[in-house]
């Protein structure tokens, strides 16, 4: 039992890490990765939604009629997104402002709906929570990696600290929209190189 739950948790960290292995949830990873701080904030908010929507979907999996299941999943996910939105508005207001419309847009993050449909609708609550937590942490790490690359190259800082010394000329391109696409494309390329051994 414990073994299989650990397995569900682990697969989200590497084997099926969301934005790279399953190409899902690309919009936030392009939009909120200008700095590590934003990226991690977004990742944690998404993790919360994945875990609790998975839990609720798994608990209700025998009650929800299969014809209206997608609509039911969307309502469950939207409820938890609203919770995150209100909590962040109350306690981390500056971050809430920076992430802007991308917090309500967690609703349409394909990972949330994808995991509810592909995993939580067929598995018991505990395994589903492990799956959601694994996916969420994998997603957070991916966001943080892209965020670290863009912040360090584009601004010369990491979490506000200078990394390359005073003579470093920031590579501004990385912070702009085109840089986000190119950076993510190259990270995917590196992931393919490592993964295809």
């Amino acid at each position, binding site marked *: 039992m414990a073994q299989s739950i650990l397995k569900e948790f682990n697969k989200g960290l590497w084997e099926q890490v969301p934005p790279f292995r399953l190409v899902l949830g690309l919009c936030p990873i392009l939009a909120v990765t200008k700095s590590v701080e934003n990226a991690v904030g977004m990742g944690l908010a998404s993790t919360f939604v994945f875990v609790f929507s998975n839990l609720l979907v798994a608990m209700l999996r025998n009650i929800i009629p299969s014809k209206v299941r997608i609509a039911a999943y969307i309502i469950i996910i939207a409820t938890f997104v*609203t919770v995150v939105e209100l909590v962040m508005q109350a306690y981390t207001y500056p971050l809430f402002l920076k992430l802007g419309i991308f917090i309500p847009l967690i609703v*349409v993050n394909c990972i949330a709906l994808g995991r509810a449909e592909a995993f939580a609708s067929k598995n018991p609550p505990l395994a589903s929570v492990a799956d959601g937590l694994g996916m969420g942490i994998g997603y957070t790490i991916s966001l943080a990696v892209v965020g670290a690359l863009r912040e360090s190259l584009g601004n010369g800082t990491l979490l506000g600290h200078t990394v390359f010394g005073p003579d470093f000329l920031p590579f501004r391109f990385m912070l702009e*929209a085109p840089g*986000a*696409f190119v950076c*993510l494309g190259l990270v995917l390329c590196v992931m*393919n190189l490592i993964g*295809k051994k």
Partner: protein
Amino acid sequence: MGDYIVLAISCILINNILLAQFLGNCPFLGTSKRMDTAVGMAMAVVFVIVLAGVITWITEIYLLKPLDIEYLRTLSFILIVASLVQFVEMFLKKSIPALYTGLGIFLPLITTNCAVLGVCLINIKEEYTFLETLVSSFTYSVGYGFALILFAGIRERIILARVLKPLQDTSIGLVTAGMIAICFFAFIGMV
């Protein structure tokens, strides 16, 4: 009138929903491998975004605001989008079968297209009037279709090129999207 033209240009070219605001990237990479699917998706997106933009605006102004329940915005908007997509699908199937065969398979995909919900939320956030909402919804979605079709054209060519193995498919697609985004960058000084 001039204001609306400025708004239209900024929505299509400068603040392009796909390349500058990063919304709707999953279907962008998913449906751009062939030109005909890209055109179908683009048309379906224009259709749904305009309808959804107008209906969510009305909901916000006449229902959520007077009752002071704006915290239900996310929940109600996603429900509107999802049911609208269902409704449009059924309507087209019954009354305009020709259009349905063209758009049919793309309609269910649109529910999870974050560009739809994104445009609705931007309209509210920018506090647009009804006419501005109409213009911005239409032009944002046209900008989405424009970028999607441009990208599909380039992607059809890339299939013929020899790309390094790890760079293939999504990876080279993202780098290409970056190049197109650079082209759109040139419009920034326009308005």
